[in-house]
């Protein structure tokens, strides 16, 4: 059964790696719902957050393919309940419209939006939250002439993660000890894709 998975990839910072990761999805005709690259908790290590809608089996295989890339340190995949996530959205509406209609202002308060720019002609609002929250404001603003709308990629924090610092130390050991688990997936034999 397909569902939303958030994939977190820790990588070195290298030109071309974004493409190398993206084509793994393209080759399997998997649509990437959103992808974000950013610094991570460790200087010099990048963190990709990729959102896709797929079965767990496919996700696991794709993650192994990503982890196989030379510059990729580690890949995690999580379902929605295992992460804390946010998306940010920006909305541009006519300032006249906002000034004229008190209702709109109340609406914005209810949605937790804030104005980030106000000019004579237009006003830009911002909300941050889950998909349904940002979508709710789009729906609400549409009758009042929503001029522009844009939403960022998902960023996510893994609830269980204790950060990448310890993991990186293991990676940096030339001869790692027995306790290093290099590929957790190997421990998860219960559900395996077979067709």
């Amino acid at each position, binding site marked *: 059964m397909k569902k939303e998975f958030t994939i977190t990839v820790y990588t070195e910072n290298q*030109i071309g790696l974004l493409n190398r990761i993206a084509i793994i999805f393209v080759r399997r005709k998997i649509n990437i719902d959103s992808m974000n690259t950013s610094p991570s908790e460790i200087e010099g290590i990048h963190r990709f957050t990729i959102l896709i809608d797929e079965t767990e089996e496919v996700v696991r295989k794709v993650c192994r393919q990503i982890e196989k890339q030379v510059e990729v340190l580690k890949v995690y995949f999580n379902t929605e309940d295992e992460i804390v996530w946010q998306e940010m959205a920006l909305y541009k509406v006519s300032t006249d419209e906002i000034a004229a209609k008190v209702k709109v202002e109340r609406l914005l308060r209810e949605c937790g939006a804030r104005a980030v720019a106000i000019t004579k002609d237009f006003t830009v609002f911002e909300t941050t939250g889950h998909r349904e929250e940002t979508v709710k404001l789009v729906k609400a603003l549409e009758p009042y002439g929503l001029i522009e709308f844009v939403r960022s990629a998902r960023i996510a924090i893994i609830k269980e993660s204790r950060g990448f610092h310890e993991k990186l130390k293991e990676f940096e050991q030339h001869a790692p000890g027995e306790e290093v688990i290099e*590929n957790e997936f190997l421990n998860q034999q219960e559900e395996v894709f077979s067709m």
Partner: protein
Amino acid sequence: MQTLEILDKKEMPVIEGSAPRLPLQGAGGAELPDIEGTASLLPLQAAVGTEISGSQAVLDAFVSEGVDTIFGYPGGAIMPIYDALYDYHDRIKHILVRHEQGGIHAAQGYARSSGRVGVVFATSGPGATNLVTGLADAMIDSTPLVCITGQVYAHLLGTDAFQEVDVINITTPVTKWNYQVTDATEIPTVLAKAFHIAGTGRPGPVLIDITKNAQLQKFGYNGYTKCEYIRSYRPKPIVRKTYIEEAARLINEAKKPFVIFGQGIILGKAENELKAFIEKGGLPAAWTILGLSALPTDHPQNVGMLGMHGNYGPNVLTNECDVLIAVGMRFDDRVTGRLDKYARQAKVIHLDIDPSEIDKNVKTTVPVWGDCKETLPMLTQLIEKKKHPEWLNKFREFTKKEVEVVIQDELNPTSEVLTMGEIIKVLNELTKGDAIIVTDVGQHQMVACRYARFNETKSNITSGGAGTMGFALPAAIGAKYGAPHRTVVAVIGDGGIQMTIQELGTIMQTGVDVKILILNNQFLGMVRQWQQLFHDKRYSFVDIASPDYVMVAKGYHIEGQSISTRVQVKDALTVMLNHPGAYLLEVMVGKENNVFPMVPQGCSVAEIRLS
């Protein structure tokens, strides 16, 4: 430089123990300056602290990595490297091919016969794009390569400059790693990484694209340090003992254990480990097409070939064994047939160095992630000494049936037309199984792999995963350079030879001793067979005409002959094998012979057809 060598035939160096040097005569017989004499005065490697160019750094890296042969083709954007090569030619041989695809297949052949990293030079633009087929082939067949491509000046990148192609993006899906160098100071570390990545873990092709300015740029040289460690790259997994113990327990409890192995054995140099393992456990072992020659053909526990045109027993009994032990193989669809009917009854132990292979196609009961050179002995230690005579006998019964229905007719035909199998049989008798057999793709490939006999490892070189027609002729050239003391026979169909026939020019010029055996059935035979069996004999564009191959070879000063009757076979093959230097033998075989057994596409391995 590009017209450096045209040789008189009598002066052609013949490889005998050592490979030939670059010829020293220019076109028209004019003597080039005695670079050989001056070269010996040059230091072996560039000195630390001196100023060198990016191009010199490339070649210095090669010397440090022990590269002895480069297959390449010059052009505008790689000229500085070729200029530097002029000073290094006493340390590194360069084989001038006739097409970059030939160059990369030759490097693959070299890598496969020698177990070392193959090295390729190509220029920017079309030079680089011509490498793509070879990269894809090397990627899927895990062949270690380092390809250097020239690129336009860095300031011209993205301007649609002459011979500019976005090589990095084109090659990303077909390389294990690739990198564009725009600054010469990066070259030593990047090349060290390239060799490390290409040759370790699951090997694969690496491409380094170097802009022309970086090739020309001078920089203070800090020497070359081999790369042994990359933080984000772990080629040698830590073997976890619990899995080994679990696997050994399954094998010890098994009544009908069955080993299937692939090229991982050869790449991991674990041939002896495999032998010890199957001998102690009394385990029957079958091979994938790339695993062929890892275990001698006449080993009593070698039960044959897996897959679509493999042997009867191994295919049928895959669906009867109780424990399937897969070693260094990746369950290709040509091996498994229909996946949901593949070995469903068996517990599967999968030994592989690449974790992404585990559970990719076949669900594993016990994954053993690691280098089989390490994991196999650990398993051998824990398994009980056993024999499974009844189970082994079952394989022999299937072999008997296969001999009756298929093999007998193929090897000892009663009709007048020659079969491919009987040619391979005579070849076996003459080479005694000691030759390297390089095959192309198609019917002849299946027949050669089914019937050729091998005593030594690294003796079967073929394009497996990619199925690249045109592979064999250039790969055979490379294979000879990789193993100069061995006889190399390229078995090629009449379709495949015409795809890279230009490499006869490379053979002419280098004098490399390659035996070319064309099995000509005047058809694109494998496609014709499928059209016959699955498309109502609608032979759509498989009727391929051939030139007079003997005449073509003669044009390249390569001797040869064409035969079509049984009485000529043994003598002709003897002449070919005994001929000093390259030789082309064309054998006209039956036009509409089919390769059997066959697992039709979409069928289970147990549904293998004998006719």
